[in-house]
Structures are given as structure tokens and as C-alpha cells.
């Protein structure tokens, strides 16, 4: 792998204020184990040389199709997984840096309350055998963060902020609907007053009308509580709605990163273009005008990716160079990063406007 990494090129982000979190060359390889003797026959490269930074107060979107590694990246940041290699530089409140990829489990505890995660499935992410108060307050209790009296107040307060009635804190999760459960999940994440929240497909399992409520709630909370979001989703409309900047992943690699408007209207990577082209637009008049790019073939196998650019077998602009040389994420100016050899030459179209 080339050591010519984008971290130095990411400096524009660093200049206008330090990033809250900087991910550098993150690698997460999962071994493929076969047989009873646990022989490792290969690795699934779920995240490979991923680099990006999150600025304080912004919402960064991480988008891609299933199996592209976006969830893995999110879980590495909250340290559900220990990354195989790379750095996760977190800037503490006292303006000093710490590499979350290197700290041991004990030290990690101090950052667990700063960086929280919200899961997709509001049904499997709440323990059905604990009531709402126990679920939300568990993190306070095990970390001795406050007295029992304060705990009750804090939980009630957080529930109220998330649009839940504090009177319901003795109820069990089965008493709540999907949308309310997701609010409980949000309250669980926010009760420690975190600085960064990783939202892993946090609204994907919800009904349309409830999804809008949760999206608005998350937006309000971000403003009120000074939150920074890493918003992971496969839904391009939701990402467009809530994110300031968007990163696109394909087979474990970051292929494009830009300001949301730029990315949607003026993508530089052919994969981003085909994603944009595939999004269904809720306007029947658009469909006659559409000129959809149909992707050929299947997403590459992350345990056995193709040589060169991972996207080249499906790319309609692929040339000889793409088959041998892996493109590096490079700065195209204006905070627009792309991993494509021909980003300067290609004329790509963004999302079809209504």
C-alpha cells in the first residue's frame, strides 16, 4: 500500500479549526477461519485505508451499498472493533489529541461517554428484559457518573428532550412502537452528553412518517446539544437531507468525499454517479427524462477484490490503467476528494433534478 496518504491533503479541513475526529488509513481486516483448528485462509477487508475527518458541529454522511464497510468504520470509531491498523485521532475537550485505535480498554472507558452510537434496529438494540430507565441509565451507573438522584433527573431530562414522556421510564421496550424505541435508543446515546454520535442506519427501519419525526428530532438535538454526527446510511435521500459533507464507500474503500451539494450535483467518481442515477425520485415526471446508468455485474467480493480500481469491472469509463493501478484518494480542490484516475477528464452527471 502506498504511504502517500490523504491525511496531509486533508489539511484544508484542519486549517479552519481542528477536526473533532480524524480517521487515518483505517484498516479493519476480518480473518476467514476454516476448520476446527482455526486456520486463517484469508481476510475480508471490510475497511481498507479509509481516511477522513469530522469537524466539530457538522454531520458527515457515510454512504454505500451493503457490504461496503460503512458500518465497520462506524464500529471502529466507537471501538466496538479494534482496528487492524490505522489511527483514529480524537480531539478531547481540553484540545489534546488521543489515538483511539491505540488506547487500551481501560483508558477507552473515559471516551466511551464522549462517542456514542445509535443502531438501526430499534427492536434488537434494546434489552427486552430491562425497563427504559435501566436501559438509559446503565452507562451512568457502571461508570459512576452521578448519584442515583441525579441519575433519575438526568434520564427524565434526556427522555423529555427526545420526545418521550418521563412517566414512561418504568415501562419495558415491548410497550413502545418502532419510532418510540428509536427515541429510546437516541436517549440512551445522549444521556452522557456526548460530543460525537455515530448513527448507524438510525432511521432505516422506520415508517415514512415516523422517519421524518426522528430526522427532525436529530437535527434539533444536534443544534441544542452541540452534537457532531457521523451518519451512516444507504439511503441517499436521507443522507442528502441531514448531512453537510458526504463520504462514499465502495468495497471497503473511500471513493469520494465532498460537500453534500457538490457531491450530489457534481460527482467526480463514476460509482457516485451511478448511485445518483439509481436513486428513485418521488416525481413521476422525471421518469420519462431519465437516462439511467445501469451498473453491470455485482459488487466485488471484499475478501478477493479485483486488481487495480475495485470498481473497474463495473465502470463504464474503465481504461487499461484502472485494471492495474489502484487509485488514491486525492484532493480536487474545494475539499473535494476522489479516488479515480480520470476524475479530471470525466464529465459526470449528478442527481436528476425534479
Amino acid at each position: 500500500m502506498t504511504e502517500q496518504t490523504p491525511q496531509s491533503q486533508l489539511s484544508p479541513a484542519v486549517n479552519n479549526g481542528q477536526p473533532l475526529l480524524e480517521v487515518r488509513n483505517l484498516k479493519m481486516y476480518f480473518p476467514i477461519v476454516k476448520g476446527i483448528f482455526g486456520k486463517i485462509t484469508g481476510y475480508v477487508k471490510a475497511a481498507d485505508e479509509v481516511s477522513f475527518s469530522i469537524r466539530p458541529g457538522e454531520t458527515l454522511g457515510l454512504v454505500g451499498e451493503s457490504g461496503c464497510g460503512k458500518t465497520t468504520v462506524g464500529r471502529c470509531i466507537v471501538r466496538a472493533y479494534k482496528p487492524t491498523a490505522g489511527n483514529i485521532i480524537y480531539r478531547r475537550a481540553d484540545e489534546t489529541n488521543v489515538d483511539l485505535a491505540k488506547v487500551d480498554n481501560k483508558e477507552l472507558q473515559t471516551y466511551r461517554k464522549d462517542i456514542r452510537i445509535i443502531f438501526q434496529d430499534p427492536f434488537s438494540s434494546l434489552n427486552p428484559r430491562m425497563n427504559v430507565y435501566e436501559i438509559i441509565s446503565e452507562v451512568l451507573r457502571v461508570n459512576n457518573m452521578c448519584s442515583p438522584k441525579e441519575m433519575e433527573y438526568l434520564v427524565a431530562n434526556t427522555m423529555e428532550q427526545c420526545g418521550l414522556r418521563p412517566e414512561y421510564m418504568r415501562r419495558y421496550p415491548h410497550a413502545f412502537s418502532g419510532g418510540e424505541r428509536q427515541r429510546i435508543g437516541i436517549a440512551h446515546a445522549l444521556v452522557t452528553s456526548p460530543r460525537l454520535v455515530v448513527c448507524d442506519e438510525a432511521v432505516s427501519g422506520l415508517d415514512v412518517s415516523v422517519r421524518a419525526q426522528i430526522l427532525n428530532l436529530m437535527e434539533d438535538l444536534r443544534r441544542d446539544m452541540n452534537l457532531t454526527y457521523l451518519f451512516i446510511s444507504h439511503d441517499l435521500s436521507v443522507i442528502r437531507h441531514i448531512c453537510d459533507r458526504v463520504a462514499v464507500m465502495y468495497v471497503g474503500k473511500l471513493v469520494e468525499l465532498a460537500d453534500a451539494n457538490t457531491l450530489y450535483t457534481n460527482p467526480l467518481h463514476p460509482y457516485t454517479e451511478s448511485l445518483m442515477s439509481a436513486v428513485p425520485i418521488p416525481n413521476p415526471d422525471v421518469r420519462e427524462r431519465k437516462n439511467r446508468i445501469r451498473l453491470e455485474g455485482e459488487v466485488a467480493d471484499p475478501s478477493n477484490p479485483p486488481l487495480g480500481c475495485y470498481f473497474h469491472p463495473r465502470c463504464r469509463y474503465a481504461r487499461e490503467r484502472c485494471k492495474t493501478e489502484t487509485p488514491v484518494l486525492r484532493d480536487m480542490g474545494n475539499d473535494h476528494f476522489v479516488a479515480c484516475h480520470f476524475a479530471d477528464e470525466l464529465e459526470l452527471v449528478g442527481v436528476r433534478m425534479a
Partner: protein
Amino acid sequence: MTINEIDLALANRASGSPAIESDVRVEVASQWQLMWWKFKRHKLAMFGGTLVLFFYLLAIFAEFFAPFQFTTYNDQYVYAPPQMIHFFRDGKLSPYVYGYKFERDPISYKKTWAIDESVIVPLRFFNRGDPYKLWGLIPSDVHLVGPVNAKDPFYLLGADKSGRDVFSRIIYSARVSLTVGLVGVAISLTIGILVGGVSGLVGGVLDNVIQRLIEVLISIPTLPVWLALAAMVPLSWSALRVYFMITLILSLVGWMGMARVVRSKFLALREEDFIMLARLDGVPMGRMITRHMIPSFLSHIIASITLSIPGMILGETALSFLGLGLRPPVVSWGVMLQDTQKVAVIAIYPWLLFPAVAVIIVVLALNFLGDGLRDAADPYQ
């Protein structure tokens, strides 16, 4: 908040809110309440549960429920047949049984019994009879029912070869047979949870070794192992030591199934989102296991325990029947059934098989109960 209040108000108004109160009951219900509500709907399991409870009560208060001590004998009434209890005499509540008369068969000179309707044996509730010490502690002589005159014959389920009351002996046997199941399950549960927990939580090579070991052990046929182990118990041991040895032998086989169940539960739970969230909350390992993981499968474990008690009871019965388990003077259903090893006995004195009936009832009842518990074990589907 306001939106929610409006909603609630609207929902209340819309539904006329008669359902609200019962809904709140469900919403604050813990898993045990939900399980109980679900279990209650399972009629057969409720019936089984009641029966099991009844048998365990009999076992606990055996001295009180049994009309006689299990050692009390009367050589006048060897192999006396069962009597029918009558509750009313001359329209008044006054329980009695008919006495016996015996004849000699003119050809074989064998004693044969017949009920003599002219002799009335009066009975009394809370009768003072054989003195005993309840649980070896509280001295008393009150029995639920017994003959007013202690020398009178009273054999509800007949008498055995020494003229002892089969009914009383079945009740005393329940104490041994039913606790063998409980103690055995407790031992196998402890071993099972320990081994399964280590296997499921630590994983890796250790898990592999433990699983292969269990596979080897589980493939050894049960009965020969039991027989071999039981045969090694020295004859000189006291009844109590033999009893514990036998339970240990029985549970040696049971723990493997339990270990597998526990391991698979731990493995499945490790992948659950809410466990990962708890881990990210910083919940330490011990609390994770006791507070987050075990409650999630405790109900399943209870159900599978209930379903494994019958195996223990049957195992004890089989061993004792073969003379390799408990030995007289200890009574258990298996020990009692030793008397039925001769076909002739069964043909002439079929009431000696009543202990087998007790075994069948208890085993069935436990199975019904376990079935219901298993269905109720996951109330969140």
C-alpha cells in the same frame, strides 16, 4: 412533549380509553409477569404444574400425609388388597373402610383376602397415630387420616410382603425420588452453566476442546455407565452417602446437554445489538453476564431444567429397580418396584405396581409443565 400529550389525549378520546388501564399493566410488566400471563393460557401446563406442586407438597410433609410410618408393618395383613374409602355413614360425615377376612385356598393353602363388609374400620382426620419427627426436628403424631384404632387395618393402596402400607411408602418414596431429580438437576445445572459459560464466553481453542470432549462423553451409552458407576458404590456406605452418590452419578450425564444449551445462548447473545451497546456503555464482564446476559436466557434454562427432571427420576427408578441404586431401608419408587420383579407377584398382587403409576404421573406432569414453560419462556415474540 406537547405533541405526545396531544397524541395521548387524542388516542384516549378516540378509543374511549377503556383499554388504557389494562394496557398500562402490560407496559410496565417485567418478563416474569409476561411469562406468567402467557403460561396461564396453557391449560395442560397449568394442570401439570398443579400436579407437580401437589406431589412436592406430599414429599415435603410426607410424615403428615402418610397414615403410617414407612417402616410400620403388620404381619397379619401381608399382601392385603386395597380398600375403598367411604366418607358417609348413616348420612353423616364419618369416614370408614371395610375390614378384611381371609380364607385358605383349599387346594394351594394360599391365603386369599376378601373385603369383609361386616367389619367397619372407622377413620379419623388429623388422627393421632405413629409418632414421628417432622424433618427430623418437630415431634408430632398427627396424620391427615388414619384408623381410630391403631391396630385396625387401613391399606388404601394395599399392603406389601411385610404388611406395610403401600400408600404411605409411596408418599415417603416421593421424598427421595423427587429430590433426586431436583438435586441432580441442580448439580448438572451448576456444572453445565460453568462449562457452557466458559465455552461460550472465552471461545477459541478452549471452546473447541470442551465441545469435542462433550461430544465424546455424550456418545457413551448412558445405562452401562450408570451401572458401572453404581456398582462401584461400596455396600458399607450409609444410606445418605449412597443417595448423594446416586444423584451425582445421574447428574454426570445431564450436565452435558445443559452446557451445550448455555453455550449456544451465550454465543447467540454475543451477537445481539443490545449486548454490543451494553459493552460500549462500559459494562464490566461480571455485570454483563449477570445483569444483561443471564436474565435473557434464564427462563429458557428453567424450562429445560423442568424437562430434564423426569430423566433423573426415571434414572433413579431404573437403577434402584435393578438393585444398583438405593437400597432398603431407604424407600424410593424404584426400591419399591424391586418387589415386582417376579411376574407371579404382578399377576396376584397388582397393587404393588402403584409406585410405577406415581412415576408415570409425575413424569408426565413435569413434561406438561416444562412444555408450557418453554412456550412462555420468550414472551416477546
